[in-house]
């Protein structure tokens, strides 16, 4: 359990600064917390809530909606096998069966040694290379059973460390500038009538 460390806190503050509304930084910050710990710890979510002036429940509410955000520990490698229509037609389920046997776990489960989490996912948009899978969201296409076995060997030997970073690391490229053009004008116009969505074109103007 850990709050965001100094390096991640700096990056979090930089991220918050590029949005007109603080809460918009929530999903990027949750990815950041996953990059630090591999999954979302309660402490990290509380820390994010503090940074964004939200309640921990609001943070949890958003986090629990999205498939890529994990509130429980996952393996070092998240293996996501696609079984949606294009992969289904080209052997996606056969690949998933093989992966289950090879890793000894059902989809949604982490292996005993804590290294692999297997997942069955919806279309990940690499249909031209079906059946496909992703490891920590790095894509591999036209995966045969032998290809899958070889992939595990390559992962464990470290040969793919460059290509496949640890789980949670999504975008390794940092934004180099803040808002160069300056912040947009105040986002919420002052005082629309109560109950009217702000910005609604026919909203009565305050007198």
């Amino acid at each position, binding site marked *: 359990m850990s709050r965001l460390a100094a390096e991640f806190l700096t990056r979090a503050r930089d991220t918050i600064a590029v949005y007109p509304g603080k809460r918009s930084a929530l999903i990027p910050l949750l990815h950041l917390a996953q990059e630090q710990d591999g999954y979302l710890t309660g402490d990290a979510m509380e820390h994010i809530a503090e940074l964004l002036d939200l309640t921990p429940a609001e943070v949890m509410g958003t986090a629990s909606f999205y498939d890529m955000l994990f509130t429980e520990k996952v393996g070092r490698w998240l293996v996501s096998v696609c079984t949606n229509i294009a992969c289904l037609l080209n052997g996606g389920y056969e690949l998933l069966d093989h992966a289950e046997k090879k890793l000894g776990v059902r989809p949604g489960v982490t292996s005993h040694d804590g290294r692999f989490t297997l997942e069955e996912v919806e279309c990940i948009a*690499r249909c031209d290379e079906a059946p496909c899978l992703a490891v920590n969201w790095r894509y591999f296409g036209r995966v045969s059973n032998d290809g899958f076995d070889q992939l595990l060997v390559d992962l464990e030997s470290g040969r793919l460390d460059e290509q496949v970073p640890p789980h949670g690391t999504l975008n390794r490229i940092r934004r180099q500038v803040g808002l160069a053009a300056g912040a947009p004008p105040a986002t919420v116009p002052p005082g629309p009538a109560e109950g009217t969505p702000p910005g609604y074109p026919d909203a009565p103007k305050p007198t």
Partner: protein
Amino acid sequence: MTVTEAPRIVTSRLAYDDSHTLERYLATGGYEALRKALTMTPEGVQAEVETAGILGRGGAGFPAGIKWKTTMALPRPHYLVINGDESEPATFKDHMLLERDPHQVIEGALITAYATQCDQIFLYVRGEFALGQERMQAALNEAYAHGAVGRDIFGSGFSVDAVVHPGAGAYICGEETALLESLEGKRGFPRIKVPPKIIPATVGVYSEPTVVNNVETMSNLPWIVNNGGAAFAAMGAENSKGTRMFAVSGHVKKPGIHEVEMVKTTFRDLIYAPVYGGGIQGGLELKAFIPGGASSPWFGPQHLDLPLGQDEVAQSQGVLPGGGGSMLGSGSIVVMNESACPVRAAWRLARFFARESCGQCTPCREGTGWLDRIMFRIESGSGRMEDLDLLLDVSDNIAPGLAFPYPMTTICFLGPSSPMPICSALQMFRDDFLVHIKDGACPYG
């Protein structure tokens, strides 16, 4: 087979290995369109796009220029959101554009931001596209350094910032209002729209006027500004102008992305022409195909000669019990040959919708789960004869009339589009359903 002479508009750089770099982009005419647009008035750029008559490439097919005008007429701030949350099953065109030609997306977004006088751009990239996010961020950094984004772009006095924003895995966030909720850090619940007053163009992100456009739509803009709207409108026909990317997958010999001229090309060309799909896998016959993503009603061999045009497909004689055609939707064509089990295929799509329903509206939340369970029961050999009527009954409660286009019973389109695969399969392949139920097993093994 027809293969027209139309130029490649959005896929022109994909042959280069370094198509994602600024160096290659500049060497192939990159950011010239933005310079040109900045010498025009915003209204002039808008007029050019309206002349082009480009329909939004995200799925709904709404003319891109129209919503710009709505936003322009309202007080600032305006926001521009680029929808790169491509999650429709078997759709992979935006994925390719984000990874392979990110500068083109950014240049298109900057042109749009100028034409609609936006104050900030959000490039919303699907969470799963890790490489796409890295490529977009790297391209954006390069574009800032090049002076194409930020303060006083190319000395024109126009300033705008852009931010790459990651999604986190939710199909529903491809729906524009759900995407805006997600961008505000909330659960991806679609918002109620009340056209023409309450739509993202008037009340969008942070309740401000917001233009939401698809990645492929953006990628067309540099070409349109460079060559003029009339040159774009000269391709295609009637309502469907220009070229469009189609993602062909499933049982074809050469699955992949193909940019073809609209209307002049047919489904048969796309599936069978050697330069496109290359024919059906395994020397078998075509059984059925999905013309526009999981949400669209299926087509059979009798529809192969339909032209790839929005109206042509919508007004065709489709297979649904309630009548109506289908849609080009997200531009993804899934081909099934004789070896494919239509029940299994329809079940898998039913389960997709059940998993991805956000749960706000009862017909969708409950209905998609019912459809998933009934279809699974049939596919796995435990189906009952009365299940066939039950499927239609549940479907009719989600999409009354079982026709296309469907009436809305829910906030967004996910609900009423979910029965489309099942109703299509049931109408086209009723015998297959009967064999599953009578034999208590899937005849396809």
